[in-house]
């Protein structure tokens, strides 16, 4: 069984939880459909977003340079990191330079990708995640299971227990309003004493040197405006050329992510506050090699909205943790093998190739086509399991040979009728676990077609 399948099995063992997960994410998908349907030019917007991102990926150095010039002109300190280690070192050096003790952080998948919290922890520096979902999983020592809904794998009773232990809320209390209030009070104290705030970046505008952060909770703003030092972290692909492009992306992002028309706060940071310092740290960390591969380049258009996760029939039923990679779900499954083909070889297989992900993606990333391309590449590079390769080889031979195909089809129809159940559903037949074949038809489609076409 693949790693993904093993972990999915664990997730599915709790039937009521997995059903809730499936239904809840589907509800988010439906909310997205509802609000997208209210925008008549929705499909045009997706196309425009895709075109802008394609242009960005083709002219990335130009836009990055433009961004840096503008930002620097506004007194912003722009730093570059080529990989995760350099990124973490840079953040550490900023923290040390300003002798920051109390550090708050709002959501940033890049810091997750680089393992920033762990890196700082081993050096005795604690970072407080301030997004409620992220704070919950930080308390529990878990990884996010979804990029927009990090604690979607948890039930409120579990969160109640965690808060009882960490924040002293009443034992057994699990009311979401009560728990959110407790977190608000706890995190307000953190904001008020913060001396350095880290955020992610949704968009960076080359033309003006501004970074844009979208949140519903207001945690990015509370951190950035309370702390004298603000540090915004982004991957190189977050650049967009012009201010007016934001008109397109802000119309797509929240509608795709949570089915809201816009996030509660869309914040634009261009200069530090009076007396403050503003940093933008731009990381490559494996993006340039990906750019060089036309087949997989488009994955860098991703806005990190999470829509492909909410719609994915496999994600909804297997949970984000089953993927193992920082970014789970369809988009994660095409990003992960780029990092390590062997380690993540099972992820492109964890998909039905139904194409729903590509259909909802606001940036029109061709996710399902890339999943398919990865399957071919991983097979060729011999990164998939031995059993899978042999089965595929044999299947290929059979499908390419008409006589053999007919013969085996005939044999299978007979065999399925007469062989004992335990033989057909032997351990090698992974497909048969949890599934039953339909009754075999009397004749093949080919035979049926020949017979009926004559009439």
């Amino acid at each position, binding site marked *: 069984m693949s790693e993904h399948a093993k972990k999915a099995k664990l997730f599915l063992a709790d039937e009521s939880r997995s059903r809730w997960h499936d239904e*809840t994410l589907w*509800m*988010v998908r439906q909310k997205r459909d509802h609000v997208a349907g209210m*925008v008549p030019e929705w499909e045009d917007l997706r196309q425009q977003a895709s075109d802008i991102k394609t242009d960005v990926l083709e002219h990335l150095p130009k836009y990055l340079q433009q961004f840096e010039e*503008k930002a620097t002109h506004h007194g912003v300190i722009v730093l570059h990191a080529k990989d995760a280690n350099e990124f973490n070192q840079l953040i550490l050096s900023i923290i040390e330079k300003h002798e920051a003790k109390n550090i708050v952080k709002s959501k940033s998948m890049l810091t997750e990708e680089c393992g920033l919290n762990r890196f700082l922890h081993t050096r005795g520096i604690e970072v407080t995640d301030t*997004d*409620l*979902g992220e704070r*919950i999983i930080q308390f529990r020592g878990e990884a996010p299971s979804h990029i927009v*809904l*990090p*604690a*979607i794998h*948890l*039930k*409120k009773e579990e969160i109640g227990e965690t808060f009882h232990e960490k924040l002293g809320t009443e034992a057994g209390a699990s009311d*979401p*309003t009560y*728990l*959110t*209030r407790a977190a*608000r009070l706890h995190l*307000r104290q953190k*904001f*008020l004493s913060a001396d350095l705030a880290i955020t992610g970046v949704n968009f960076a505008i080359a*033309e*003006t040197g*501004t970074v844009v952060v979208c949140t*519903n*909770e*207001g*945690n990015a*703003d*509370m951190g*950035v*405006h*309370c702390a004298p030092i603000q540090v915004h972290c982004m991957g190189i692909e977050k650049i967009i050329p012009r*201010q*007016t492009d*934001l*008109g*397109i992306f*802000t*119309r797509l992002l*929240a509608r795709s992510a*949570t089915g*809201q*028309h*816009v*996030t*509660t*706060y*869309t*914040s*634009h*940071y*261009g*200069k*530090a*506050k009076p007396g403050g310092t503003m940093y933008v740290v731009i990381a490559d960390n494996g993006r340039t090699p990906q750019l060089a591969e036309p087949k997989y380049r488009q994955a860098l258009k991703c806005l990190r909205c999470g829509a492909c996760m909410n719609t994915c029939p496999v994600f909804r039923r297997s949970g984000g943790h089953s993927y193992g990679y920082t970014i789970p779900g369809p988009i994660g499954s095409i990003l992960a093998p780029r990092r390590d083909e062997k380690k993540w070889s099972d992820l492109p297989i964890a998909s039905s190739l139904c194409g729903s992900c590509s259909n909802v993606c606001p940036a029109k990333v061709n996710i399902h086509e890339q999943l398919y391309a990865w399957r071919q590449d991983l097979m060729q590079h011999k990164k998939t399991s031995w059993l899978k390769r042999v089965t595929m080889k044999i299947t290929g031979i059979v499908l390419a040979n008409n006589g053999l195909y007919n013969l085996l089809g005939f044999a299978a129809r007979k065999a399925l009728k007469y062989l004992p159940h335990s033989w057909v559903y032997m351990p090698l037949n992974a497909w048969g676990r949890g599934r039953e074949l339909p009754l075999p038809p009397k004749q093949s489609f080919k035979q049926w077609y020949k017979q009926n076409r004559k009439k």
Partner: protein
Amino acid sequence: MNNIDILKERLENAGASVILLTENQLQSCLETHFPSILNFTDTVTCEEYRKASLEKMEKIDTALFAGRFAVAENGAIWLEDEDLPQRVLPFITQKLVLQIHVSKVVDTMQEAYQQISLQNTGFGVFISGPSKTADIEQSLVYGAHGARELTVIMLS
């Protein structure tokens, strides 16, 4: 529906309360509904808070700001550095009131970004409702970290 109706509907959907007033009703409305309000459209209040400590600002119950314009399609209201003695104010206040003139409503975000100059703005924000979260079992709760309530006063 005209864009004022759409704006009102989208704001209410996002958890905000909307009040429609004429300009000369404003003062008495504020006095009745928000007796303890800090009015940041007033230069004296702005000056008082330009250097205020976080501890002082954290005690603010209700704060009023004038939005520059609003976006009908999503209820977003634009504020920037010039409207704020300190950037943290519209977030740290427990309750937020934004006033906006009905003549200052655009239809979409694409039009909105034609109105702004990020080039010259140190900080600017679109606010479209009270702070919220659904991180606990997708149950919507208002008042995550920013203002717990948002009231929008639409002036004509």
